[in-house]
């Protein structure tokens, strides 16, 4: 388990915090990719967007959590 984050006395699952962060990063990335007309090469944009979010979430978790305490990552 990743545990909970304390925001002014309110405990929120850390995964949720990471998820929200990853969501906004994905949004920004999507805007950039759209500007570059990247989606011409994508077969299924809905699937791609979802997969992109999962990858970003994994990356964010990998960066922010210490390797010893987290269950994610290599």
């Amino acid at each position: 388990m990743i545990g909970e984050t304390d925001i002014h006395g309110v405990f929120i699952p850390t995964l949720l915090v990471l998820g929200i962060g990853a969501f906004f990063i994905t949004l920004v990335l999507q805007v950039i990719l759209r500007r570059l007309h990247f989606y011409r090469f994508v077969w299924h944009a809905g699937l791609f967007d979802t997969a992109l979010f999962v990858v970003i979430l994994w990356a964010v978790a990998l960066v922010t959590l210490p390797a010893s305490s987290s269950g994610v990552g290599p």
Partner: protein
Amino acid sequence: MHITGRNLAFVLANTIAVIVALYIAFASNLERPYWAMFTVFIVAKPITGAVRSKGAFRFLGTVAGAAMALLLVPPLVHAPVLLCLATSLWIGLCLYLSLQDRRPRSYAFLLAGYTAAIVGLAVVNSPNTIFDTSVARVEEISLGLVCAAVAHSVFFPQNVLEELTGRIDRTLRRCGTWIADALLARQSIDLETQEQLAGLVSDLHVLYEHVVFETSDVPRNASVMQALQDRLALILPRVSSVQAAFAALSTAGSVSPSTVQAMEATSRWARAFPGANGAPRSDVETMLDAALAQLPAESESSSEWTSLVQRTIATQLRALVAELSEAARLAVALKDAGGTPAVATPLGPPSRRALPRDRGLALLSAFAATAATLIACALWIEGSWPEGAAAAEFAAIGCSLFATLDNPSKVLFGVVVGILLALPVAAVYEFAIFPKIDGFPSLALVLAPMVLLFSWMQTSERLEGMALVLAIGFSGGLALQSSYQPDFASFVNSNTAEVVGLLIAVVANLLFRTIDPVWNALRISKSGWYAVAHLAQRPTSDIRDWTLQMFDRLGLVTQRLVSAKRQDLFGRRIDGLRDLRVGMNLATLQRSSDALPPAARKSITSVESAVSEAYRGLIQGESLTHRDSARSIDQVIAAFAAQGRTQTVEDGVTALVGLRLDLTVLGSRYLPQPLNL
């Protein structure tokens, strides 16, 4: 209901979303998994962008409503009357705000209103749980909508542009046929085409908001969409201008062969018009160009009334052809990422636009919602009725959801019937099936037939509303929780409270919010006349927003009068196309005023005040041609006719002839008097 791949994909995606949402809710021990379950049904739409935008606005609204409940309940929990008053006023305020905008974002305001009631009123007996309940509501709603959004974007998504461009293409082709008939047979107005086109222009405004929420491969071209709206809104007034001018020529008995030829060539061109997805035929185009070129040439150097009208016809036909072709090009560009369409005026950045608001009706709806909630609260407090809170919640929900309709009580009554149908099914599940099952897989299995059925009903336009009511009634009736606690008494009590709440909403809407569609159509027309009078007093050359609003009013009026079978009311007084023509001509006049010598420019003001006077007279019940505006218009026509023939002068003449045709009695004599400079 047809079995198509699209429908099957929707049903599949929706069922998966419901089951997954339920599974996650149970697995993480959430308080009321059924909230997540019916959220999936509520946001489910056949179009991915619509699911995602509804989800986003539902989330925002829920957060705002839960926050409001957190703010209201702790200080007011010991003063129930004040708490009820505050909650009902908040619901009224939110409903009023949501009715100010017809775009999907208004849903957030609705939710903010009644979520406060759902969260706040449910916990008055145990106020210390308010925080947990608020969080649970937000969590479960978010869970449901995330599941729905992911499922509907991954399994065979449908984007809103596909739907819109299909509709644009159909409407454009229909317009072509109608124009062809209108120019030949002088068929005056085809209300169906009017309604269809006006509906499309307003829907472009409303539905385009979904595009922002679409999957990333859907191009975002808001400025192309607005340019398309502008073109589409001009087509009908243009055709009707030509018709009016032609009628004037016929009355004068001086229809020249070349006029007929130009009309016929345009008609042929319009009949061959390929819509948005085809190439125009070049032979028809050349013929059209030749016919249009001949028309003004014939009326050279004459300032007779008939030749002025001929010049008008030529200018309007040319503009019509240009606008229709541009509309087709823009419709193609709408689907095209990064393409710039070939149109005469370059596209600017998208502007902020709004459809007309109806403040009076919004206020009335808000009042009805507040009243219904207060009545339910009064029953709850005075009658010491333990489930009264649920009645108040449902009174608020019922009043909010259908506030856009002319007659909400009829639909609300249908909702009551739907819930009464769903409850026995829920009872069978609750008391006959659930005792026999154990664990999530078997629960999913027994729920699947119902979920499949409701999702299947949602794919049909006709059954969509009923499906939603049944799904909500069913999920609410089951009230699935982590442990099974069968309690027949509480099942009956809480569901009776729901139905009573909805019935209170029915009564409140019957009393305060039932309006005659014909009367409402007259009201909307009148607000349009005010808009024309206002425009005449403060003329501008850019009336695109004004046109959009007028065109929307035209659609609302036509739709109401046609469905009430009162076509006879169209004509002398109610004529949205005439109002649009007058506005267009005022703006053109303003643009062409530069062509006049400075001393003559002042005379335009007298035309504008004549228009404003005429419309004020119309509002007071006079006919539009009652005041004599001919003299002031004739003066300015003479001033324009004295100038050299440039495009600007031609436009000015066209605008003035158009105004004269609309504001004076047909066949009144044109008496140009030189300006006293």
